[in-house]
């Protein structure tokens, strides 16, 4: 590859000793900064002036620092504490799967009506705030908010249960607006029909209920072969509804489901 541009410049050598400003110029420059910052230094008084909760904060930092824009401003897409909408969570496990730090654990929460379901619990002692979990969430119920004060003096307080993240969700913090459009997954769930025993485990555990057990036509019995007597069913995956969480693969007792290219 050739560059269109890109040339070499030789940076000038310093001026000869006679012409150097000795020490006067730096001193003058620093003195100028002194008078500039005499009343309003650029410091952001962070713990005294809360960044996020205070709506006037942005205006204030603009005035206080000489900088052209708000220094230390927290933008809405800052990746901070997670907010979880327990009600729409489908327990698909994708957040836990995509976490590089294994800080997400699926725990039981009360789903109402005497039922319980699995929702993510995040240990911020391990979390690296990479955002993979919220990117992976197919329902958009796990998002990251700009809230960033998780400081505590007890390690147990770093573990955020689903209910606690639901509280964060209810506060209506600005939601991370840059949830990405995921690249189209070229893989789908495929079935090895030779191994399937039609046990229904995948359809039962599928969080989106996109797996239906369909009856397949009974094959012609070859000579000398005995076919099972019961009705033969095997899973069929609705690819458009599938969130590709892989739960079916992990629950399959015969290892007959696998990822593969769409046929």
């Amino acid at each position: 590859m050739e560059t269109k541009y890109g040339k070499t410049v030789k940076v000038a050598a310093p001026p000869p000793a006679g012409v150097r400003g000795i020490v006067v110029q730096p001193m003058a420059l620093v003195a100028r900064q002194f008078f500039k910052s005499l009343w309003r230094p650029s410091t952001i008084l962070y713990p005294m002036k809360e960044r996020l909760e205070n709506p006037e904060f942005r205006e204030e930092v603009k005035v206080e620092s000489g900088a052209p824009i708000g220094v230390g401003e927290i933008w809405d897409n800052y990746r901070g504490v997670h907010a979880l909408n327990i009600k729409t969570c489908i327990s698909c496990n994708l957040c836990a799967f995509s976490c590089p730090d294994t800080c997400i654990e699926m725990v039981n929460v009360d789903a109402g009506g005497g039922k319980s379901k699995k929702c993510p619990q995040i240990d911020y002692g391990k979390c690296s705030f990479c955002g993979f979990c919220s990117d992976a969430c197919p329902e958009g119920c796990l998002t990251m908010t700009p809230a960033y004060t998780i400081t505590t003096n007890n390690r147990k307080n770093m573990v955020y249960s689903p209910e606690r993240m639901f509280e964060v969700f209810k506060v209506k913090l600005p939601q991370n607006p840059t949830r990405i459009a995921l690249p189209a997954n070229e893989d789908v769930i495929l079935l090895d029909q030779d191994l399937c025993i039609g046990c229904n485990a995948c359809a039962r555990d599928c969080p989106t209920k996109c797996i239906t057990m369909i009856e397949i036509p009974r094959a012609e019995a070859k000579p000398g072969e005995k076919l099972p007597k019961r009705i033969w069913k095997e899973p069929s995956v609705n690819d458009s509804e599938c969130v590709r969480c892989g739960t079916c693969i992990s629950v399959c007792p015969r290892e007959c489901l696998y990822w593969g290219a769409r046929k």
Partner: protein
Amino acid sequence: MSEMWINMGPQHPMTHGLWNLRIKVDGELIVDADPEIGYLHRGIEKICEYRRYNEVITLMDRTCYVAGIAWEQLYIMAAEGALGITPPARAEYIRVLSQELQRLSSHIIWYAAYVQDIGLMTPFLYGMRDRDLVLDLFQSYTGARMTYEYMRVGGVRNDVPVGFTDRCRKVMDWLDGKLVEYEKVCDNSTIFLDRTIGVGILKAKEAIQDGITGPVLRAANVARDIRRDRPYSAYPEIDFDVAIHDGADCYGRYRVRMEEMKQSVRIVRQVLDWLDRNPGPVLAEKVPRFVGTPSPPPGKEIYVERRGYPKGRGFSSMEEPHGEAMAYIINEGAEHPYRAKLRSPVFVNIAAAKDYLIGYRISDIPAIMGSVDVCLGEADR
């Protein structure tokens, strides 16, 4: 016995990280040097072999704590080479933008720390103040200030937000003025010039032989810049100059970095103009399941063969703020890299410490090692 060994480090203000510079001194004169590293070794290359392709990104950010996004892109380019994916053009431009902003922030922090090493603390605070603006820019589009996790195999995580380009231009205008100020503090101060000119000389021939790269090499009058010589990403489309200096000393390295910051501002402006004109996707449309997000469990190992993803080797090389960084990734068709090798420029630049140091004084050590721009996170990996 007039000579003695002194351990400068692993906890020492000169080191900027955890490493140990053992020097043998005769009075104030350095007669021998033996750098020791490894205090910050986290085994990133080994952990890479246990992580899926996207998950490695979180490690790359932590490779170098002042130039995280550079390492992200380095890894991503190698991974894309190994997997055979081409990112869209807009993603490439955003990557170049990230690189140059990172170069700015890294060089500014270098400048701040360097002048403080020489004994002047004021520019340190100026540097930190202005670097914060750059970090704010990063935060406004990646979502984090230092550990970005922004690059993805096949593009970048998200597009820049609305209003970003104007904001970025404002910061660049502000930096224009500040860079001149930085230079005034140093170039017009006789003491600074006395401390840096003719100190820590490493001539071109020796530097090439030692494998030195980056601003240190360019200060020795060798115009090697991977961005220009072996362009990657959108660099072929971008107009910039390669700064060199013939001093081969600390002052030359300082000048080269100052000029590079100006060039970075120039590149950022070009990229912003391009981004304004060309909307488009920032992620490749199709990526293999196990590198895209989400990354569900792979299923049983017996089916890995059945998928038949292409095996391959990915190689990338780029001009990181510290020098020439390389990544070499071997893909054996599995979920995770078979081998990921990272070449850190700092690793090599530290190794040559003997050549910079011998014959100078103890007082020169911060000036010399500071001018090399040491970041131990990436040297130890």
